[in-house]
């Protein structure tokens, strides 16, 4: 092998504590090395020129660049050697900056270490072989999971970009949490007025196929070629016939059904359309409460329905959609405050969640937008808001800040004073977190313009006293205990991962954190990508977010997908595992450990079981290689022999002094 070594000074970054010319000189004596030189900036234009020239002049078939971390410039130098006609995998790097010059000042030791790192690289390089990526076609359809504002935005942007979009929502209508909100901060404009039109656009968009009351059941395949099995739940209403007239709702006798859209503030009918602006506007039966389905009698809705859409026999069905990319926008759920015994554990009717309060404030809510407290329907005079319920509290496993509670609490306090001018609003808070555009101004308006009373401290106890609720807490600024007799207490419950998030993550083969929020590829530089190619994240499924952030991410994922689909074919990274069939004994241990299901059991022509890697699914982790007892499955570019070569370069298997 003819190896060329290029030792980078990186200005004084390396040369400051490493004798670069000395390293180059010593490198010449390494096995396989036929050329070595040192250069001021290997990554600079002249630096790269030097490399490409040397490759041609000395007809090198392998290159070692001793410079910064490969995590920094490997792509750069791979392109460089490729320009000179070498395969990009015939490049190795020796990290003599981050791992040498920057962590020690002893020139002798650093220089020696640099030479050894180059020796390792040379040893590995001598085992390298050219690798070429394979290409495969992309199915330019995208699946969006979750019909909240983030999913809606992603779906619309993709669709406007000309892509076929499949939007899956597990509820009967899209809209998500935002559809439940009354107003939005910091502008106090009507939530449904700004979301509504987008929901309609989704319904009308020719490129969008909308599946509500559906869930993702199984995901197979890989970037560019996913195959998604979708489960359509039984709604007992034939939606092709249902016109959404609502006649069934008027006549349905079981009116005590759970009204989850209204957060159980009041009840609804067993057959219902969750809210007037629902998209699609279709009725569905809640099997738990329908007397026909539970007891077999009634059937009023079937009689009343003008289009015979009711079908009590309906069962769940499955359908499959093939897509090339997936956007997860499954949002969040609300923290269950009943774990707080000191807050009444949900026993007191007039201690409600912030989302329930939204429904009370909402003109299309159960109270028609009049604030009436649940217990006796009286208008509350004193409303106490308690923040950080299930946020920033390690004791309930929620050490993180939900981010938006400060803002919506301020909003709700303002709205309270709007609706009931003679009322008083109190807010117990830890810190006010308002780092958005016009956010801090907004919270200040609540205090200064609307006279909302902010008390800095945690609430220690809430209990019923006659028909009032006593809120006891600390005012750490005043430095004393306060007790407020309230008519209504609103708990600013924090956000937590959407129910079923971990299960979905496993279907998508993406990772999730200890709270169940999906993990992005890189906290800073890959916030909407995941470690699984072709799967993207939008909105609160990745962590609590407010509306603008969720919308922005919706658009960001759309941009990512459009970028991905801008090519007709994708290149698969050739650093994947492959099976040496003659060595494989078919024990399938690799199949069992592969995190990606990238290995299949096949039969060779003698009908012997053999493992077989699907290159496009393999992510190149090498778990299989270290699992295979006979070394039959090898991860390209990190084979046993390549790693052993590095080990042997550092610890030679034998010393032969006979020539010394």
């Amino acid at each position, binding site marked *: 092998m003819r190896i060329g070594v290029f030792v980078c000074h990186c200005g004084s970054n390396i040369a400051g504590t490493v004798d670069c010319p000395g390293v180059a000189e010593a490198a010449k004596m390494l096995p396989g090395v036929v050329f070595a030189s040192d250069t001021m900036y290997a990554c600079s234009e002249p630096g790269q020129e030097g490399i490409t020239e040397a490759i041609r002049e000395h007809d090198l078939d392998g290159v070692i660049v001793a410079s910064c971390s490969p*995590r920094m410039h490997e792509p750069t130098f791979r392109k460089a050697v490729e320009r000179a006609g070498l395969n990009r995998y015939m490049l190795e790097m020796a990290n003599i900056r981050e791992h040498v010059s920057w962590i020690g000042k002893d020139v002798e030791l650093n220089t020696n*270490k640099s030479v050894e790192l180059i020796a390792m690289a040379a040893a590995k390089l001598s085992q390298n072989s050219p690798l070429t990526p394979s290409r495969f076609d992309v199915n330019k359809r995208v699946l969006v999971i979750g019909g909240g504002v983030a999913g809606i935005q992603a779906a619309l942007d993709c669709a406007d970009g000309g892509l076929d979009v499949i939007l899956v929502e597990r509820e009967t209508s899209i809209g998500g949490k935002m559809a439940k909100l009354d107003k939005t901060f910091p502008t106090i404009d009507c939530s449904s007025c700004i979301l509504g039109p987008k929901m309609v656009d989704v319904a009308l968009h020719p490129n969008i196929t909308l599946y509500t009351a559906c869930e993702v059941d199984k995901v197979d395949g890989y970037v560019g070629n996913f195959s998604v099995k979708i489960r359509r739940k039984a709604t007992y209403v034939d939606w092709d016939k249902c016109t959404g007239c609502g006649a069934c709702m008027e006549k349905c006798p079981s009116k005590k059904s759970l009204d989850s859209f209204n957060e159980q503030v009041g009840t609804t009918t067993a057959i219902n359309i969750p809210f007037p602006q629902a998209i699609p506007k279709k009725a569905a039966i809640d099997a738990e409460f329908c007397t026909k389905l539970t007891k077999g009698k009634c059937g009023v809705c079937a009689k009343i329905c003008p289009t015979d859409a009711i079908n009590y026999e309906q069962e769940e069905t499955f359908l499959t959609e093939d897509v090339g990319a997936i956007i997860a926008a499954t949002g969040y759920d609300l923290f269950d405050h009943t774990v707080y015994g000191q807050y009444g554990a949900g026993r007191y009717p007039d201690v409600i969640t912030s989302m329930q309060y939204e429904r009370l404030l909402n003109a299309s809510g159960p109270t028609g937008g009049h604030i009436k407290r649940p217990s006796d329907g009286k208008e509350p005079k004193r409303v106490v808001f308690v923040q950080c319920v299930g946020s920033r509290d390690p004791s309930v496993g929620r050490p993180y800040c939900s981010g938006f509670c400060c803002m919506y609490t301020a909003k709700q306090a303002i709205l309270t004073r709007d609706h009931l001018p003679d009322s008083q609003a109190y807010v117990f808070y830890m810190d006010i977190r308002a780092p958005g555009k016009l956010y801090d101004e907004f919270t200040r308006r609540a205090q200064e313009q609307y006279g909302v009373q902010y008390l800095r401290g945690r609430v220690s106890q809430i209990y019923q006293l006659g028909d009032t609720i006593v809120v006891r807490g600390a005012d750490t600024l005043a430095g004393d205990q306060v007790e407020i007799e309230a008519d209504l207490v609103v708990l600013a419950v924090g956000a937590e991962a959407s129910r079923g998030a971990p299960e979905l993550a496993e279907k998508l083969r993406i990772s999730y954190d200890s709270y169940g929020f999906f993990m992005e590829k890189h906290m800073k530089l890959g916030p909407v990508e995941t470690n699984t190619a072709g799967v993207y994240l939008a909105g609160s499924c990745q962590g609590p977010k407010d509306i603008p952030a969720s919308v922005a991410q919706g658009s960001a994922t759309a941009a990512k997908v459009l970028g991905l689909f801008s090519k007709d074919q994708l290149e698969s990274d050739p650093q994947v595992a492959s099976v040496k069939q003659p060595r494989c004994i078919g024990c399938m241990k690799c199949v069992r450990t592969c995190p990606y299901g990238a290995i299949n059991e096949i039969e060779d022509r003698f009908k012997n079981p053999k493992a077989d890697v699907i290159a496009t699914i393999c992510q190149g982790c090498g778990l299989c290689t270290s699992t295979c007892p006979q070394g039959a499955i090898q991860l390209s570019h990190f084979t046993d022999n390549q790693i052993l070569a590095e080990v042997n370069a550092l610890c030679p*298997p034998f010393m032969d002094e006979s020539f010394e």
Partner: protein
Amino acid sequence: MSAVHGRELRIIGFLCNWCSYGGADTAGVSRFEQPTDLRIVRVPCSGRIDPLFIVRSFLNGADGVLVSGCHPGDCHYSEGNFYARRRLELLKRFLPISGIEPDRFKYTWVSASEGAKWQETVTNFTTHIHSLGPAPTVLNASTPEDWAKVAQNAANGAGCGCGCHKERA
């Protein structure tokens, strides 16, 4: 490749690319000074590390081996380090029987952001290896003299403590 005589010992590191190798980079970028002994082998994932790489290193004369990967749960490949953790822990418990001091082997979890932790890890480990000194070499006998050495050891009865193989009286 001989370490600079007397001043360094032979310490090999196997680091996963996504977390620990990045952590080592971060330590460098932050100019966190460390002992120079360590030589890092970069692998995609701690799950790629066959415990036998570590055994091979020791038998080839390494004085210490340091393995580091993503924190369990943060694996770039979602599961690799969970398998690695089991393999490495088992190896650590097993090494003593082979006569390799378990302290010469350490595995740990360092994320790409934990430059300081990396510095601390490397410093402590290297210092500890130096306190243990060079590892005993395993004979790679090829000459009669080597075999004479083996015979001598055996004759001196170094070793056989194991009851069922005590020599016939």
